[in-house]
């Protein structure tokens, strides 16, 4: 007997590669979206700070915009918030 695979329809779930499961700001899972969004993933991406903490982009933007320019720090570690460029 010989079995040959002719086609494959797979099912998979996607995950963010991050060092945490939930966003520290909105407390939603990263794989879900922030409170203002409808769809996860591309519509509600993550951003990594230089301190290596990551959040929903929308969440951290809200946080950052709510503070004075001089006082823009990561809510987790209080280091200055700088987006890590890749």
């Amino acid at each position, binding site marked *: 007997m010989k*079995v040959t695979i002719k086609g494959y329809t797979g099912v*998979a779930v996607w995950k963010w590669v991050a060092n945490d499961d939930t966003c520290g700001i909105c407390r939603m899972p990263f794989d879900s979206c922030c409170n203002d969004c409808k769809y996860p*993933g591309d519509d509600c991406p993550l951003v990594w700070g230089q301190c290596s903490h990551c959040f929903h982009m929308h969440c951290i933007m809200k946080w950052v915009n709510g503070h004075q320019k001089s006082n823009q720090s990561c809510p987790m570690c209080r280091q200055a918030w700088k987006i890590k460029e890749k």
Partner: protein
Amino acid sequence: MESANLLRLIPTFLLNNFKDDLNDRILLSLTSDLDVLIESIDTNNSFKVLTLNESNQCGNDSTLSNEHDHDQFLVEISTRLYHIFIKYFTELKKHFNRIEKFNSKCAQSINLSDLVSYQRSILTEKLHHPHYELLVFLFKKVFDYYQTISQDFQHQTIADFANLRLNHGLIDNFLNIINILFDLGLFDHLCGDVVVGVVEHKIKLHIESTSMENYEESFIDSFKDWLDRIIIGWIRLIYSCQSNLEHLGDYKKQLMHFMYTNYAQCRIKRLFEIVIDFPDSKNAVQDLRQCLVKTNLRSHLVRSLRLSIEERLLHPGVNTSDIITAYVSAIKALMFLDPTGVMMENVCEPLKKYLRNRDDTVKCIVSNLTDDSESSNDLMEEFCKDLYSYEGNMDVIDSNTADCAVLGSKNKCWRVWQPEPVDSPPDSTPDSSKANIISMLVNIYGSKDMFVNEYKSLLGDRLLSSYSFNMEKEIRNLELLKLKFGEQNLFACEAMLKDISESKRINANILEQLKQHGVSKMSDLVVNASNLKCLILSEQFWPKLKEEKIDLPSELEQVQARFMKSYEAFKGNRTLVWKNSLGLVKIEVEIGRQIFEFEVSPIHVAVIMQFQQKETWVVSELAQELKMCSFVLKKKILFWKAQGLLKQVSNASQDDVPNEVYTLVKDSSKLNKNKNLVEIEEEQEKTQKVSDVLKENEINLYWNFTQSMLRSGGCLPLERIHAWLKLYANPDLTIEQVKFLVDLKTKDQLLKYNAGLYRLNK
């Protein structure tokens, strides 16, 4: 003193005298003559058979071979009866006359008119049951005869009746008999009941024979006409020799009411069928509506319909979807019958309660709502209609059923306002939701959430079992549901659909990429884009997907790894986690020289591929090899066994699954080509995939816990059992798994489920 005594004695004396006279001379011979007549009919043509016949069928005597013979026979009977009556009743008349003469001669103090009526009552008393039966028989027969001859023309005037008598001997005899009775003032005594009885009997028969099985036509008008023409004509005929026809109007009213009552009862008897047939049986319901206004049968209707619904619908033998269909048509029919909705609420109360207890109700309703491939179009239509009305397009709603409610909500019908019917429950609210079938269905549970959740899992099942990217229908359904339930509740479903369309885009992209780079290294599987695709889901938004850890064949793993790599490159910082219990693999199996194609889950492929290297496996060994549980593996093996690719070798006892041995079938001729079986198997797979199934050893473990829990706790709700089990046995246990366990045990009659509580069945 003496004269007073004498005066007191005279009536007694007279009474006795006249009474004896009547007894001996007239009544005895009258009854005996009638007996002779009945006997002669009995021997001649079996009177009993005729009367029996009469009650069974309606009017048409098929037993008598010849219509003419029958008429002749009737004429003969009526003539003989006439002669008997003439003979005795003329004597009776003389007798009465004598009394009256005596009365007039007598002094004023003694009034003998009472005596006459007394004598009359003696006469009625003397006649036995068979004699009355003879009269009833005669009336019925003559009525039938009359009905047949009056088909073509109206008999309204005295001249018409005279004409009738001239042409029909039977009628003539009959009227003569009646005349004599009228003459003696005996008609009401002897025949009053008979006339009413026969007429009512005939109305009943007529209604039943014409309308019982036919729900599609309206009969009220034809019945009215029939009553007017035949019955009233007949009563006119009977009373034609009397000048006083005043009471005919009362008679008519009474009979009309009798007809309405009877017709309504006839309809109510079959109301269940009528309700089930509803849009087709609209006329019947319309009739019933008219009748209900004139009769007092509302509570009877509600009671009887509830009873028949309970008897015929609310038992385990009926499919939930059938009950829902019945519920929907009951709502429609009863809203038509009673636009205030009170009757519908009263009738449907037990239905609603019962549906609440069935666990697949929500599923059925949701799938009915959204699946228009089957015969459930009805509900779908209703749903769309409902939405149109939601948008303010009132024309779509049947004006008859909903106008009052709709108008009521717009506060326009205060002029035509009617109070709620008396039988309305005290807590009912006259709102427009009554007219809305979908709301009625949704309100079985009282909340939208259950519906939304159920729809979500249904949608998930459907998307994951079709593996197609074609979702126009689903999108349309979702849009409809969004209008109904609000957008917020259905975000997750929207995200699910978006995942699928996104997957399509990503697939195309990745395949393009794969084609460009390193195609040569990949197996030919990847080259052909139509043969590889992947659904990439956002896990948080889907119903819980079942995990089954297995090691896939290396070919598939390679493909997955490759695909994943491309994905990771395509979407930065994201990766894929494969769900190997889901998905579909297309394989070709070559046995001997024949090739068979299958489309199965990856697990099945993993199983069958193991047999490629080694033809005989012990279940436990194979389980170890594939890193899965023997019991789960057994199910997969059984699938291939059903296909004819594998067969069992050892005859291990049934419980000893790990030690069963299976081997490859080499003879391709034995292969099962029955496609149906494959589908059945696959269907079972599908349902197991999503439902949470416990393994057997787990079941025993948890069952022991549950038993002792219930022994000390009496009865517990599912949530409590779950919480306890989580605490003591396994913190990862899901509530679905516990539900599976208790359901299983309830099925085995070890548990009893009542009002949300489980208890041990002792």
